[in-house]
């Protein structure tokens, strides 16, 4: 029977197929009280925002999987020897990354030892001592320090810091600490300027802002009653900081230091330009030119002509990834602990 479709049936068809909005004879039918098109709008909107959020997970997973897959050859061939052998020779196809791991750990440790006290001191000054008119400019300057690209630290380190280290700082350190039994080992050999120590110093400069900014937030989050209790008992300001504020903020400050460490571990260009890039045998001395994992990658990726060389370089990146993720997780747990359960309140853009 060729009767025109009833209004009801047209609405039913419309729900199963998209409306033709350009056809005035097919007006949108809101079906059950107009909720259909509303639901579609919200559905599409929510789905696309979920998709955007999910893409972060996808990229992180893809990154991990690809690094594992591409380093498979080297993983299988060298196994644990990759991390314990110090022969890195692409002609003999021997790849042991121990010198790189060592260089990364040493430069980061030097950086943390130098930067930690200065950054926490500066944070204490800004949070507890500084008058209001000084507080903002100091914080701002230190945040700017965090915004300087690492290549510029590298340039400055290359042309300014390296000569100063070679001619002044390193000979002086050698004079003072050289004769002391155990510590002296760190300062043996000819001071050449481009070595692990200089790498550590440039990293220290770069991680001060990170540690300082987070420590400051953590210290500011300590309840005023902590300080006031000590002060009311007759403590000096330093005593109240030392015994009431710092213990309260300890976990957060440790987290800040470890986040700084995480930045130091992965830093590339600045270190590459001052560390000397030489895979000599590991000595105990800080005056040895070396490589970090990151600088080794940056220096050698163009030479990776064989599959096994490529795979070895990717494995260095994989090790770096795992180390930095582990360090980041530890740091964030520590910082969150004092961050009133609100990670967004701490850390800021720097992290």
């Amino acid at each position, binding site marked *: 029977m060729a009767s025109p479709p009833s209004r009801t049936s047209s609405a039913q068809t419309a729900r199963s197929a998209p409306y033709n909005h350009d056809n005035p004879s097919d007006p949108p039918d809101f079906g059950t009280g107009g909720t259909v098109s509303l639901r579609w709008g919200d559905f599409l909107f929510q789905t696309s925002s979920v998709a955007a959020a999910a893409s972060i997970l996808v990229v992180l997973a893809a990154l991990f999987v690809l690094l594992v897959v591409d380093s498979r050859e080297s993983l299988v061939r060298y196994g644990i020897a990759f991390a314990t052998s110090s022969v890195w020779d692409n002609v003999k196809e021997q790849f042991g990354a121990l010198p790189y791991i060592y260089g990364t750990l040493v430069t980061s440790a030097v950086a943390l030892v130098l930067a930690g006290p200065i950054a926490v001191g500066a944070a204490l000054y800004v949070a507890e001592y500084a008058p209001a008119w000084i507080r903002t400019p100091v914080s701002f300057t230190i945040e700017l320090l965090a915004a300087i*690209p690492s290549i510029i630290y590298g340039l400055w380190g290359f042309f300014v810091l390296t000569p100063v280290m070679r001619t002044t700082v390193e000979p002086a350190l050698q004079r003072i600490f050289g004769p002391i039994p155990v510590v002296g080992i760190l300062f043996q050999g000819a001071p050449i300027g481009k070595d692990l120590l200089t790498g550590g110093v440039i990293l220290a400069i770069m991680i001060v802002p990170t540690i300082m900014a987070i420590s400051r937030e953590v210290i500011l989050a300590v309840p005023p009653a902590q300080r006031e209790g000590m002060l009311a008992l*007759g403590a000096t300001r330093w005593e109240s900081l030392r015994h009431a504020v710092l213990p309260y903020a300890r976990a957060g400050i440790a987290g800040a230091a470890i986040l700084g460490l995480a930045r130091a571990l992965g830093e*590339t260009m600045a270190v590459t330009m001052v560390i000397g890039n030489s895979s000599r045998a590991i000595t105990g001395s800080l005056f040895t030119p070396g490589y970090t994992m990151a600088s080794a990658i940056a220096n050698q990726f163009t030479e990776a002509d064989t599959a096994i060389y490529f795979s070895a370089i990717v494995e260095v990146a994989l090790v770096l*990834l795992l180390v930095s993720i582990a360090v980041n997780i530890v740091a964030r747990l520590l910082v969150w602990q004092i961050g009133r359960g609100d990670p967004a309140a701490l850390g800021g853009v720097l992290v």
Partner: protein
Amino acid sequence: MSSDTYAPPLAPAYPPGGRSIFEADARYQVRRGVARLMAVLVGLAALGAVAVLWIILGYVIWRGLPAINWPFFTQRPLPYGEPGGGVGPAIAGSLVLLGVASTIGVPIGLGAGIYLSEFGRGRFADAVRFCGDLVAGLPSIVVGVFIWALLVRHVIGHFSGLAGAAALAIIMVPIIVRTVEAMLRLVPHTLREAALALGVPQWRVVLSVVLPSARAGIITGVVLALARAGGETAPLLLTTLGNMFFNWNLSQPTAALPIQIYNYAVAPYDDWHTKAWGASLVLIAVIGILSVLTRLATRGKKLA
């Protein structure tokens, strides 16, 4: 911490038949001295941290200014020995790379930020936040190796601007997500409720009420991400490699300012070193201006 440090001066400081009031006074002098010393040390630490910035900035300006002239911005780098030459391709390349990276990264970052602030509850949202933080904490060289292995070695087969832009996008996204989430959370709930009460669907509430109120903050997040990505060197080195010529073709190696600085710096020529300082001055000026602007735009707000 020893208990006698805090003892009120009256009780234990005067043991029976013991020390005089002057001894207690001497101990107070020591404690006050320590407090003053620490105040000075802490101030020096802050001064040192601030001084380093001004030393580096001052040095870049001092060495970089002589290199700055008009041809420096427009000419391409010339082989050593030819006078002149500049960083034109590098500036153009950086702008193109940042443009493409934003085209990829901004929608994703904005979408994820909207999700976290407007819908984000439960395990999935926590996972996204956590992974966002992890991506933000990734060493940039690892991102570089990822894109190098994926695009340069496997998919495209050679160094290209597109790969560089993809690496920069990965670096930008977590910064944008974090800022957008924090900024949208600052928008009062009453605004959303008012719109919802008028019968506006949620997607329109977000697009026409929430986002416009948080516009300044969102722009700030994007600018911060651009400032960060604009200075990245290592991931670009592994992906776009650099180029001495103007190149608008994204499937080919593209110049970028940080790579140009590196190439000029490690060459053995004084003239090129001056150009490296000049290029650094340009880079630092752009990033510094962006940072100051975002700081002014978000004054008094807590950036996450």
